[in-house]
């Protein structure tokens, strides 16, 4: 079982908490449950109720989606990342993917109650700032992709009007293919 002081040391090494005092990180570990996972242990099951988030302190996690009997690997979670954050702010949601330990991992469990009641801890402020920056990056990236598709589609349409439609549509993969690629599909 990882001790609180070990976890504090690991938290101090995370970029997320680089400006947070050891005192506030110690308080954080006292307020959050520390959870340990063995390789292949499931942390979030797909479609399970989403009512909390976690911070990965050490180890590595896999994010997968199950469609029928097929499992698709979407990505990995590395130390310093927060995951399942929609459960902190929106009620009634479910997990959109499964999260599973890739190797021995330690997580901090973050509840909506902790976020609601703890405003006087710099670690929570850092966490909130990190989430704002992460959301902004995701929104901008998705928006840029959408705008790119939109502009290419407009250019395609103009060319189509000049009787080049079939050839150009095949070359650019078509609107449907581009939209699917936003989700990592083909």
């Amino acid at each position, binding site marked *: 079982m990882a001790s609180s002081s070990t976890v504090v040391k690991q938290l101090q090494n995370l970029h997320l908490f680089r400006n947070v005092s050891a005192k506030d990180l110690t308080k954080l570990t006292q307020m959050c449950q520390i959870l340990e996972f063995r390789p292949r242990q499931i942390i979030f099951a797909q479609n399970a109720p989403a009512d909390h988030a976690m911070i990965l302190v050490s180890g590595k996690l896999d994010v997968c989606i199950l469609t029928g009997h097929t499992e698709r690997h979407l990505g990995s979670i590395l130390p310093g990342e927060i995951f399942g*954050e*929609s459960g*902190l*702010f*929106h*009620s*009634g949601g479910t997990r959109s993917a499964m999260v599973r330990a890739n190797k021995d991992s330690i997580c901090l469990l973050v509840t*909506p109650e902790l*976020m*609601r009641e703890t*405003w*006087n*801890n*710099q670690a*929570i*402020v850092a966490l*909130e*700032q990190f*989430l*704002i*920056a992460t*959301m*902004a*990056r*995701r*929104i*901008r990236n*998705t*928006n840029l992709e*959408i*705008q790119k*598709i*939109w*502009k290419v*589609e*407009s250019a395609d*349409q103009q060319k*189509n009007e000049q009787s080049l439609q079939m050839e150009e549509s095949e070359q650019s993969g078509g*609107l*449907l293919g581009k*939209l*699917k690629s*936003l*989700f990592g599909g083909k």
Partner: protein
Amino acid sequence: MQTDDLRIVARKLLRTYQVRSTRSRNLALALGKGQEKLWSQGDLMCGEGQPSDSMFVTMEGSVQVLKRDTTGTEKELAVIPAPSMIGQMGLVDGSARSATCRAASNIKGILISKQTFNSLLQEQSPEGSAFRHLLISTMMGQLSSANEKIGGLVDDMVEEQTAEVPIETNQEANKDKLMKIAGVLDGWEAKEEDVDGLESVEFVMDEDMKRTKDARDRARRW
């Protein structure tokens, strides 16, 4: 600004953006750090491409959101009723105004300067925390709403391609939908919730949130 007025707006904002992790009195304190501002119908609130130096919270009235398409034609993306947050994305990531906003009616609102915004983002206080939670929740809503709409557009297009009886593809309509999705990502989406009857509720309760979410989910389908 009257504290009671701010409290009512704060409650409505928390319900509209489905924030369950903060209290209205703390958000009201954050809003109180802004300046009250009035716009008359037709007034320009901000112009597409201009630098983002402030954001607005509307308390009364509606905002018309316009964006230029690839041909330079200005199209209406949405008419957003109060209470709503306008122009916060540019302050988060330093980008220019992504759309033009005009007062669709007389508007009473709050202007939050870039300096106040940055201070609220860093403040270790109940109001700072409330403001950050509102922001996070708003952005999560933008992403999930845009994802749903992209999913809907993909479904429609798959249906068009696989239909036994050919369905005429409307490229112009698809382009408009893409433009609106980009707008949703920037926060330009009218919220459909009717929150007027809920003003007397002291705190955001999970059941309220669930009802609001259900109503919103139903309204989201194209």
